[in-house]
């Protein structure tokens, strides 16, 4: 479960006040709102990248409000995917596992499984430079889910993709969710995308959240 309880976040002159969201365990929450409404700021607050001035963030029942990002067990895919330019695709998939000191053989098994799941086996030795938008998204997704996170946060992951690739990614996301039940909060301003993927919907407007019926 992702549960935000009356949280306030400040970023310069911009602020979000008394934000409350609850995405049930295993559900796919979609957060919509106009550009500049604070969606990314909210995701960063859940990740621990932005300080929460008031309220609490609970993930799977655990209060993580004051925890560092590393301790929250979150898979985060930012809008620009932010791949590591000097690492290969294989190293991206292994990154969180190396940090967690998994054994070499366990990492190998997990990377192979992810590569197969995401259909990027042929890209494993390539670096991000030259990957297509869809390939980069798959790598970013693989990097985020490698360590079996409690929750996944997606920040407009398909905004730079063409229609065909976007539909491929919808299918991929759905198939991953079937194999790996995880609670998701997905930020987008695309209604079609929201309706295809989401279970519960939230609208961020004028610094306030309201839940939108399906």
């Amino acid at each position, binding site marked *: 479960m992702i549960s935000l309880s009356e949280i306030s976040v400040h970023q310069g002159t911009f602020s979000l006040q008394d934000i409350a969201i609850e995405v049930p365990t295993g559900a796919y929450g979609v957060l919509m709102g106009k550009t500049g409404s604070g969606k990314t700021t909210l995701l960063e607050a859940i*990740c621990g990248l932005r300080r929460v001035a008031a309220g609490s963030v609970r993930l799977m029942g655990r209060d993580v409000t004051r925890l560092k*990002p*590393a301790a929250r067990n979150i898979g985060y895919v*930012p809008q620009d995917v932010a791949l*590591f330019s*000097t*690492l290969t695709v294989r190293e991206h998939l292994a*990154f969180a596992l190396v940090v967690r000191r998994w054994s070499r053989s366990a990492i190998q098994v997990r990377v192979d499984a992810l590569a197969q799941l995401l259909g990027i086996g042929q890209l494993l030795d390539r670096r991000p430079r030259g990957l297509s938008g869809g390939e980069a998204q798959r790598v970013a997704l693989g990097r985020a889910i490698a360590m079996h996170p409690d929750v996944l946060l997606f920040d407009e992951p398909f905004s730079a993709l063409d229609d065909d690739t976007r539909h491929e990614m919808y299918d991929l996301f759905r198939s991953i969710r079937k194999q790996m039940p995880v609670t998701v909060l997905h930020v987008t301003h695309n209604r079609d995308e929201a309706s295809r993927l989401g279970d519960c919907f939230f609208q961020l407007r004028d610094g306030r959240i309201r839940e939108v019926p399906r």
Partner: protein
Amino acid sequence: MKGEEPRQASAMTSIPAVPAASGDGAAAAPSGRSTDGLFLFGLSTLLGSYIVLIVGLLCALGTFTTFSHILAAIKTEEIRFALRLSLISCTMSTLLSLWVAIPGGYVLSRCKFPGRSLVDAVIDIPIILPPLVMGLALLILFQTPLGRAVERFVPVTFAAPSIVLAQFTVACAFAVRTMRVTFDQISPRAEQVALTLGCRRSQAFWMVALPEARRGVLTAATLAWARSFGEFGPILVFAGATRMRTEVLPTSVFLELSIGNIEAAAAVSLMMVVTAMVVLILARVFGLRGSGLL
């Protein structure tokens, strides 16, 4: 819209350069080919004249010096010592500069703290200070109680360490500037993702930020080395110009000039040009190898 037409027409007729024959909008667009060409030609001429100046300098040095002059210079024990000391001191000051500049540039780029602007301004001081003033300041610093205490353990003034310190003081400022710009140009987003993947700040720095800054590190090292190699003013004041003791290649040029031996001065200068070019090319080749950029 109809009301605007007469005004548009009168505006067009008032511009004599517009051909009146064709009535479509494309004809009204000014023909920019000739002015664009002139503009680019002007820019190229300015750049070209600077390139001519640099090549002219190298040619003048090269034609003034004969191969026998260079051989004679290399055979001199003093010049060989100066070359050795130059290479060692420059490498040491470059390593020291990077040791300070990489974390320094990172902190200035990523961290907001009170007095950051002041720190930023202080780093510019070695860049803007006249070289002789820098040397004098170093000399006076080592006459203070603190400086004397250091001298008790490591003799600095008028000894080889003073050369490294004089080079480092100036070169490090350039290296910090370069590293700060490098980290400014790298989005912090990748490091933030690394934090969510389980990294501590230090791990995100070593595993993500520093590898991404590799080209900047190379540029900073190149700049620091080149700056150290050509450093003269602070060295003259702080280290002196004692042969076989504190003589680096710029000192050799100065000493040869001071006794009127222009041929030897030019030969040493050409040696400096060639050495600097070889080192910089090697740094580029080895630094970029494996990065996918070479």
